[in-house]
């Protein structure tokens, strides 16, 4: 029986992008459904009643929520190629720790950077620089966070690349100047088809944020 895979998503979401990359890495055919987050579909509300959020993977009618949980699910079910997590338990723990760090720290501070002004924005910028410094330190001299090959932590973080122009613009700094190793790592990742074909153009994301600020009166 053929697998039926559906992804409910929202094109600028770095969380959704993680799932799209994972599906591409594994060569999984799926149906993509774009959600309008201000008018959520019946399907989304029915399949994710607790959070009503994207990304939502529906595999043979059964919903899986939360991007990193979806990625782990994909890795376990389609385990025939392109492993996304290492096989060694200690390395897996290390990967989970850093993916959790990205989840808890990177999104929030990035949002504060473009959504706030004045002192709040200054504080967000300081926090942003600290968090990215920690990540750059963790990357070190390795080609990827996962070591020699692209892995779970890389997947959890690389999707923020499409938002870098937004951060640079509102934070008034250069990612390349502040974090040369992270930028080099991103460029390395972008050589992978699954990533280059998934990540939206930075300018498109910037325009999206300008629209968002208008809509929410955050100008």
């Amino acid at each position: 029986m053929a697998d039926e895979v559906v992804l409910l998503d929202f094109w600028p979401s770095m969380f959704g992008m993680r799932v799209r990359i994972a599906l591409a890495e594994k060569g999984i055919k799926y149906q993509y459904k774009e959600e309008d987050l201000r008018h959520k579909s019946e399907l989304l509300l029915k399949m994710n009643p607790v959070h009503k959020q994207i990304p939502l993977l529906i595999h043979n009618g059964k919903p899986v929520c939360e991007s990193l949980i979806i990625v782990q699910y994909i890795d376990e079910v389609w385990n025939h190629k392109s492993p996304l997590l290492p096989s060694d338990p200690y390395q897996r723990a290390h990967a989970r720790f850093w993916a959790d760090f990205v989840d808890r720290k990177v999104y929030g501070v990035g949002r504060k950077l473009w959504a706030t002004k004045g002192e709040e924005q200054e504080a967000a910028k300081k926090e942003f620089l600290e968090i990215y410094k920690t990540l750059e330190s963790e990357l070190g001299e390795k080609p990827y966070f996962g070591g020699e090959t692209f892995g779970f932590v890389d997947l959890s973080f690389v999707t923020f690349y499409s938002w870098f122009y937004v951060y640079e613009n509102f934070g008034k700094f250069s990612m390349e100047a502040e974090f040369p190793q992270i930028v080099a790592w991103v460029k390395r990742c972008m050589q992978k088809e699954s990533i280059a074909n998934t990540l939206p153009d930075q300018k498109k994301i910037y325009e999206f944020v300008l629209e968002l600020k208008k809509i929410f009166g955050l100008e």
Partner: protein
Amino acid sequence: MEEKVKLLGCWTSGYSYRVIWALKLKGVEYDYIEEDLRNKSDMLLQFNPVHKKIPVLVHGGKPIAESLVILEYIEETWPESPLLPKDSYERALARFWIKFGDDKGRTLSVLFFQAPEEKPDENAIKEVVEFLKILEEKALGDKKYFGGNNIGLVDIAYGWLCHWLRALEDMRGVKVLEPSTLPRLHAWVENFEQIPVIQENLPDYTKWLAHLKSRRN
């Protein structure tokens, strides 16, 4: 030869107990080191430089931090007495509920850390009740435990509810877990606390409550 296992923990922390319960349920021998969180040891700072928090599990000299990461590590390293389902979909569901609880845990702490003379935050209370309702209806359902007939990682992850909900009533006069409104979850708390490993590894409630009260002042 089995590599040594060390746990850096704190008797007041629910996160710490999650790890203790998992280790005990799997019969894993370990050395426990009590951390004074107001005076963190060099060992803790060395093993968890990013967050500087407990619990930290050290296995054969290699540290693992973040309680949920530790739980997954324990499950993978000592697969006997499994705490996660074998089926990938069921595992994804278990992970979802674990994350749900952790994300909501922060709301509960708002209620605790208000000043004693302040009236309990009505919105926070509503959110807690809503959260417990979802847990009962969608996560627990008619099962004895979140894990089914036996406890699993989801039960371990929610174990902190037992003491915290009681403390919410004692400290803030807020009673949210009534057998009349949340019968199945109420029963789960009772069942969970009866499990020998849990019973033997819970902080003394009175002592813990006193500590919570002192922390707020």
